[in-house]
């Protein structure tokens, strides 16, 4: 891991993220892992906007933003160019979930199929936050967003979260991992591993958004931790399509995660919707079953 003097981060302070911003922490951690010899390709989105209002930039590594949906294609070109020039920089995409799960899928699929040596990091805050909290393919079931609002005849987003890691693993990606900003060492290790694995690698890092999810700014890391502890988010690694490592937990009920966020408030007020909470618990149970995250009691 690259070493840095405290206060001299490659992701500089003074940017314009909200206090308690999960993605800002993700950017800081990942640059701690990459060190200086990296080129970052950004998609349009929150992170791009809060970190690079011309003429200011928070990025102390080379950074480029082109459009919302083309980061993987831009990165493909950069990687090809570096290869031709015999240069050693690592190429990373750092994109939000909307850019990754929805509008950028074509470019990502192409880049991964072609096998470019890039690391694609999706900071997943589970909705279009930059434009005002609209649902994306990464938005979890029943989350209320501005385009999937809970209402008299809706309990919020009616579709489960798209399984993007599986989609990219199916492309033959040698390394696919999920991570959480609440487990910084684990995230940084995964970034390092991806950078040192030849070929296209994917890391999806859970990055809670206090503004979009509705919790106090000081709670960001706790919320991320609760996602893991309830099975609403699973930290795992996949190597050549096989799950090789999973973060195991003593699982808590999903209610502990849901009840602390305004995006799920309609499940508890004005009246409790047990049936809906049970459906979300079933999603967590399936996650637990699929990845084997539960720490079993010794018989």
């Amino acid at each position, binding site marked *: 891991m690259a070493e840095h003097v405290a206060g001299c981060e490659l992701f500089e302070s003074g940017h314009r993220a909200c206090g308690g911003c999960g993605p800002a922490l993700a950017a800081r951690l990942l640059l701690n892992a990459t060190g200086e010899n990296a080129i970052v390709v950004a998609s349009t989105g929150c992170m*791009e906007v809060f970190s690079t209002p011309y003429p200011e930039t928070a990025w102390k590594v080379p950074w480029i933003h082109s459009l919302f949906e083309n980061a993987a*294609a831009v*990165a493909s*070109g950069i990687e090809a160019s570096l290869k031709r020039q015999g240069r050693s920089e690592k190429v990373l995409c750092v994109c939000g979930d909307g850019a990754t799960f929805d509008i950028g899928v074509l470019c990502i699929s192409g880049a991964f199929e072609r096998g470019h040596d890039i690391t694609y990091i999706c900071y997943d805050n589970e909705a279009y936050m930059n434009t005002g909290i609209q649902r994306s393919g990464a938005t979890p079931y029943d989350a209320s967003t501005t385009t999937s609002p809970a209402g008299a005849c809706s309990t919020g987003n009616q579709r489960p979260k798209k399984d993007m890691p599986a989609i990219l693993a199916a492309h033959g990606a040698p390394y696919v991992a999920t991570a959480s900003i609440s487990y910084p060492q684990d995230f940084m290790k995964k970034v390092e591993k991806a950078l040192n694995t030849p070929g296209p690698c994917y890391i999806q890092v859970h990055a809670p958004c206090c503004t979009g999810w509705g919790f106090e700014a000081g709670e960001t890391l706790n919320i991320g931790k609760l996602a893991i502890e309830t099975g609403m988010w699973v930290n795992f690694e996949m190597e050549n399509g096989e799950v090789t490592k999973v973060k195991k937990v003593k699982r808590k009920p999903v209610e502990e995660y849901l009840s602390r966020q305004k995006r799920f408030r309609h499940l508890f007020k004005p009246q409790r919707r047990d049936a809906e909470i049970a459906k979300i618990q079933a999603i967590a149970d399936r996650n637990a079953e699929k990845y084997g995250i539960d720490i079993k009691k010794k018989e």
Partner: protein
Amino acid sequence: MLQITEGSHAVAEIAKFCRPQVVAAYPITPQTHIVEALADMVANCELDAEYITVESEFSALSACLGASAAGSRVYSATTSQGLALMFEVCFNVAGMRQPIVMSIVNRSLGAPLSIWNDQQDSISLRDSGWLQFYAEDNQEATDLHMIAYKVAEDHDVLLPAFVCFDGFILSHTYEPVDMPSQEEVDAYLPAFTPYHRLDAKDPISMGMYATPDYYMEFRYELERAMQRSIDVIKRAGAEFAEQFGRDYSALVESYRLDDAEIAFIAMGSICGTVKDAIDEMRDAGKKVGLAKIRTYRPFPTEELTRALAGVSTVAVLDKNISLGSGGAVGTEVKAMLAGSGITVLDYIIALGGRDVRKRDIAAIVDLADKGVGDMFYGLRTEVL
């Protein structure tokens, strides 16, 4: 060396000689022969480049943008629907001042689907900040690629460039082309020196967003670069003439305009037909000439005004239509000559590959003589 070659192969050959380090392209008719030829060159170690077989035109130009930003000379080619899919990236490439050169094998836009030639595709990108060159024949298509790279990469310009040549009419036609050697191209076109590049040793941020405090200045700088490019094009054209003997030092080529009463304005392969028709009409005593626009962006207002100074009527041949307004070139010429006393008549022709022959050119002169214009020419009224 003079060779009989297909237009697409001539363009692929000259693209190779321009030494792109990265080629990213997606196949589309009638551009395919170019990208197939380049793939073949890479496969046979004749072209030392990374060839990215992208999954769409959108990604083709996006990959070119990334490669250019990282400091490589890049090449791509497309047409029609492919160019339409690149629309968003085109504006982005220009705004980010990446001097990418792309061949546009001009083709119409659907619906209805048509693979045949007109110039609606590149014309529709006229406001995107790309230089636009139009070739009359395959020699000019070949030569303009060298000039396009030289102009685009000039640090006084730093704008991307389309080299447009008509689909099928040129791309699939065999013509004699004087193909320069690698040494000759190297002597004309120096290695790419990026103004900025992504480099860990000197990190910069590219493609940042601009608030209303800055955005307008970026656009103003783009327009200034367009205006500066006029002199750079003339200089690059003159240098080309000196080395190769073919003169592209003007943005507008005048043909038998000196004492002309009626002047055509046209772009691309149709200019050959117009020149032949003019020769015949001249033999018959008709004073007609042609102002061929080689550089549509930047628009050659000054040269064109000068070239048309003596004429009484201008007939603009537009292989496009700005629906609800008229032909794109005609509209600009009318604005340019407003108050000059010159009558400007616009003719929408050859859309979707409708053939135009010498007798059509003569017929348009007859219409222009009567002051009849601003119309579609060559419509099959029986199917309307």
